């Protein structure tokens, strides 16, 4: 068994519930994550799957400490980072990188691709040999060097997502959070991005949390899976075992709801009443 990069115990996150916010005063807190226990083994890609409202994105944001948990421990390389201050987190930021769903909104429209990739390098004390490092980052994700001078609107969706990956990996992080990174892309582009992430994760020995609503994508990419629902873990395990023999009814329902690209006249028939 590989030793875990992350070890999470009793993780709870509560966030202000803006739908119940009174006109004056604070919004009451709603518990989004209701006590999670899991490990992320070093060098593996772990899929985190769930429908909207399952808390999967909140979980990702807690792991990279964009959020502070309300309870529980997040042990990263043997150290509990759940309640570290922003100053204490600073040296860890380089190791905890993220790629988001929509590269259009996560890339600054007024910066060249060069500056977008260079900014985190500068912030993390890697400002020397900038040109070289950016060139290397572009090459790694299969983009031509000429792209350094371009702006985000000059790029296709797939190319933008490559820039997102280049930026995150330029810092040689230990951990990458990938939150729905292929959701907005066409299937042909999806396949390219997944293949790229798979290759780079293996080459660089990355530990990845791959958040997605798409079980088909998760099966292809991830070595283990966590299925979430309403802030709790429903089921977790090695990918093949979980897909071939799902233990929980909810996991089975999720799988059965995926419309596979094959003819099945029974698929749309209403379920016979139990």
């Amino acid at each position, binding site marked *: 068994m590989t030793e875990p990069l992350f070890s999470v115990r009793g993780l709870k996150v509560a966030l202000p519930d803006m739908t119940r916010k009174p006109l004056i005063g604070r919004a009451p807190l709603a518990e989004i994550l209701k006590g999670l226990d899991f490990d992320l083994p070093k060098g593996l890609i772990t899929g985190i799957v769930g429908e909207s409202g399952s808390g999967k994105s909140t979980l990702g944001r807690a792991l990279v400490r964009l959020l502070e948990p309300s309870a529980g421990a997040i042990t990263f390389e043997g150290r509990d980072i759940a309640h570290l201050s922003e100053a204490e987190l600073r040296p860890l930021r380089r190791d905890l990188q993220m790629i988001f769903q929509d590269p259009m909104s996560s890339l600054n429209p007024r910066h060249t691709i060069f500056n977008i990739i260079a900014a985190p390098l500068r912030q993390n004390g890697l400002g020397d040999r900038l040109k070289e490092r950016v060139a290397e980052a572009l090459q790694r994700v299969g983009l031509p060097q000429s792209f350094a001078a371009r702006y985000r609107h000059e790029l296709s969706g797939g190319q933008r997502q490559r820039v997102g990956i280049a930026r995150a990996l330029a810092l040689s992080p230990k951990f990458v959070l990938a939150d729905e990174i292929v959701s907005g892309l066409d*299937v*042909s582009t999806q396949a390219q991005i997944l293949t790229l992430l798979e290759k780079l994760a293996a080459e660089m020995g990355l530990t990845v949390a791959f958040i997605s*609503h798409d*079980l088909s994508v*998760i099966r292809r990419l991830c070595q283990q899976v966590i299925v979430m629902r309403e802030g709790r873990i429903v089921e977790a395990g090695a990918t093949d075992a979980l897909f071939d023999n799902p233990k929980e009814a909810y996991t089975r*329902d*999720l799988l059965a709801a*995926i419309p596979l690209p094959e*003819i099945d006249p029974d698929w*749309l028939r209403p379920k016979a009443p139990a």
Partner: protein
Amino acid sequence: MSVNVEPCLDIRGLSAVLPNGQRVLRSVSLSVHPGEVRALVGESGAGKTMIGKAVLGVLPKSVRIVEGEMLIEGEDLGRLDPKARRTLIGARTALIPQDPLTALNPSRRIGAQMIDRLVRILGWNGEKADKRIRQLLDEVQIRDSERVLKSYPHELSGGMRQRVLIAAAFAAEPRLIVADEPTTALDVTVQKQILRLIAQLQRDHGTAILFVTHDLGVVAKISQKVSVLYAGKVVEEAETAALFEAPQHPYTRALMAATPRYTDPYASLKPVDETVLAGLAAEIAAADQAWRPRHD
């Protein structure tokens, strides 16, 4: 379906251009017969939504139709004056949009919006419209219709809003519905319920549906006929069962190999081969070369 039945929607050689002369629809032909679901599948930029918009007469001003006909139940939209065209489209077609939140007025209650639409389009009185709406909410399996009718759009879940819009689309008994990625924004379990509902209502009402989607999985489940679109051109047209049995065009085959399948992870999610894309580019270029608009 026998050939002598008049199609609900018949598009013949439709071409459209942008102000710079670039073609965005390339001699598109397709038909949807009564009681039939035709899927229009393609990736982003293929022009599938644009075809839906052309049918509903809501193309952006920048897109100009330069050639071709669109017939709804045999009536040529191009031969009608704008007012008659709008009336015909309003009475015989309806839209199920991708995002119910933008299709609904956020500041009005659901019930009032749905009733108004029927009163406006069909000239019904409020009472008759109200009755019809309740009947349809029942058909889309909304149990607490009283609460839903009094709600504002933001108070309902995404799945519930989509049910409301499906009810609204079928309420006026259109002959043709354009469904534009109606389940793309929904969770898979909700998507399955919504697809089931659309199929059920479509059968019960005998409506023809032009179903726009990017997802070959959805195509396989909902449609009987399918047109595969690339760069505004129909590259393959077939019965859905035949398409999945034996896809003919290299692009269709590539699209199928790229579509994720959890049952077969390593045979799916294949990147589209460069030679396929080069072939498509050549095919499009050849079609454009041969194309001379009949009038300009």
